């Protein structure tokens, strides 16, 4: 009988030079690796997608496997803003303020049809997608998306975090992009 070898969920080591007792790589890659596996999400849950997020954080799906078990309910310590649910126009300035209070580098995950485009709420009182007020990194479709999809979205964020260069947030392009949203 063959005994299955246990499969550890470990990160791949970055490219580098390896030898007896040492491993050399660029600092950017090491920082990317560390950041990627310790994202602190801020859940901004306003409706049913938030319920799916509860399942995502629960034992069955368990976002902790991706190093994101520590939710930050203060925007100042959060890395990832997860917007889950319908954002009414009256909620818009609140969401924007939460985003502005987050420290760089920061990422935004838009979960579900409502956050991404307004969804079924094509009405005068609902914001037709959060990308009208804040920049979004990854969109997760679904109404609501299953926990697997939310995890997939977080993994896409992880890819972005891993590959982000140190200089990106200081770049002219990034500042111009923020200025488009009227964020200093």
């Amino acid at each position, binding site marked *: 009988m063959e005994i299955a070898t246990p499969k550890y969920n470990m990160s791949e080591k970055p490219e580098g030079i390896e030898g007896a007792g040492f491993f050399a790589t660029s600092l950017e890659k090491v920082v990317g690796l560390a950041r990627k596996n310790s994202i602190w999400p801020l859940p901004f849950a306003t409706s049913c997608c938030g319920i799916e997020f509860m399942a995502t954080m629960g034992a069955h799906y368990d976002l902790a496997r991706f190093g994101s078990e520590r939710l930050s309910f203060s925007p100042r310590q959060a890395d990832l803003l997860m917007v889950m649910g319908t954002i009414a*126009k*009256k909620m818009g300035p609140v969401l924007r303020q939460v985003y502005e209070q987050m420290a760089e580098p920061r990422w935004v995950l838009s979960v579900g049809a409502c956050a991404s*485009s*307004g969804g079924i709420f*094509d009405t*005068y*009182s609902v914001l037709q997608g959060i990308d009208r007020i804040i920049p979004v990194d990854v969109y997760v479709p679904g109404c609501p998306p299953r926990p697997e999809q939310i995890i997939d979205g977080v993994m896409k964020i992880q890819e972005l975090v891993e590959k982000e260069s140190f200089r990106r947030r200081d770049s002219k392009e990034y500042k111009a992009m923020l200025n488009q949203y009227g964020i200093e």
Partner: protein
Amino acid sequence: MEVVEQEKIIGAINEKFEGQILKTEMLYDFFTITLKKDSIIDIIGHLYHHPSTQFQYLTTLCGIHYPDQKQIAMMYQLHNLVSNVQVRLKIHLPEENPTVPTLTPVFAAANWLERETYDFFGVIFQGHPNLKRILNVDEMIIFPMRKEYPLEDQTREDKNDTMFGR
């Protein structure tokens, strides 16, 4: 609702406000009195104190838009918690200038309800202590429950006539 109860209410109104009642009807098992708009607040105050009616609880009030008649109606729903009798009072206001005195001196609960009605229908409540929008964003320039304004958000780009029949 028994006819006796209906006659009690009509009698109480006619005691002091003869000729104000335009129509009485049962709408979906709910006794409804349509009144002239001039002394609606006095009538509600009168029904509050009158021993045979005692409508001392304001269930709700709201606006209704009738675009064909170019009218905005105000509806007040009152409840007598002692005898468990309810009544609906209705008045019609002109669409271009829907103005009515505030009900807040009689019922403090009318404050937020009237703000909501102002927010969605643009009815002006004269003498209201704080008449501003309550649910919608302050920057909104329309009264969204009026039929001339579209329900949909007009800035949405992913829907067009060919696909969704806008």
